[in-house]
């Protein structure tokens, strides 16, 4: 009974939607939607559909965009973190979360139409940690729990070849335990 290697469990890079950094949040959402449809049609158990890989002009992987990062890009400026910091420093008060009411109705639509054209490169998460294809799953467990990550890129021959997700690690672990 030997633990599998990350290279055996990872989802190959080509299975993820891949976009250049200058594409917009709108295009990323459309791409995710397309992949979800595709996955549902094929009833594929490995669903890499909630991540978009973001590449630079040299086709190097720049970062990974999650659904939450798209939401971060859609958050109204008035509620953004930098606005909050500014307000706090000036008045020592917190941003009232009810300010979102300012964006109800037609304002929400106008705001979303503007925000959704922002480039994904501004919101993708840079890759700071990687696993090797011949690392075993224990290493993936250790890194994921220590760094509180849901996915980690896996490299082979000094290039990123795939991504191992918390779901795959947990499913493999479960097979060993049950």
């Amino acid at each position, binding site marked *: 009974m030997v633990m599998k290697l990350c290279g055996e469990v990872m989802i190959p890079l080509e299975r993820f939607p891949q976009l250049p950094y200058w594409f917009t949040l709108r295009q990323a*959402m459309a791409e995710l939607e397309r992949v979800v449809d595709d996955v549902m049609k094929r009833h594929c158990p490995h*669903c890499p559909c909630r991540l978009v890989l973001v590449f630079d002009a040299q086709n190097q992987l720049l970062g990974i965009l999650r659904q939450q990062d798209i*939401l971060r890009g859609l958050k*109204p400026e008035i509620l953004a973190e930098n606005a909050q910091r500014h307000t706090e420093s000036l008045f020592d008060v917190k941003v009232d979360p009810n300010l979102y009411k300012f964006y109800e109705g037609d304002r*929400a*639509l106008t705001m979303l139409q503007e925000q959704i054209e922002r480039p994904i490169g501004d919101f993708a998460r840079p890759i700071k940690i990687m696993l090797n294809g011949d690392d075993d799953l224990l290493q993936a467990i250790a890194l994921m729990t220590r760094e509180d990550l849901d996915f980690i890129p896996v490299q082979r021959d000094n290039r990123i070849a795939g991504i191992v997700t918390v779901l795959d690690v947990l499913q493999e*672990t479960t097979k060993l335990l049950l």
Partner: protein
Amino acid sequence: MYDKPIHEIIVPLEEYPCIPDTLTLGDAILEMAVQILRRKQLSLPRVALVFDESFSELLGMLRRRDIMRGLEPRFLLSGTMEYGRKLFDVQVDPNLAEISSEKIVAHMRQRANRLVRDFMIPIPATIDYDDHLMKAVYEMVDRNTSLLPVLKDGKVVGVVRSVEVLQEIALILQS
């Protein structure tokens, strides 16, 4: 004009995985696996809501990562990340690796008997049944969470997830 309240996009509580805090991690995995079959889902749910034994009070939530944290062998938990990586750098006889794997799996099996309540995380934020979609966006980004329990008259009636919020935003933009 868009004024749809959040309850129109919630996943009702009866359709979402809910477990008691007294369950073991092993049983929580089994329960979540049953949910896959019951609801014809493709994979383990990302998050389960954790209630008290009588399912009257929401106590926290358990993510896949939290289950893994509970199963992680103790020797990986001490020292820095670099130290953790060095533990794997040693070349060993492949035959020995199999023996040590068995030990690790046995150790993880033991850890699967630990209770959900020791590894669940607090609910980062909730949202009201009649709140606006933009409030969900605000709370999800602000609290770095992809799931918010939805309350009606102080009781949990469902959850709203980032996937539904994004789908709704896509619909708004297409309208």
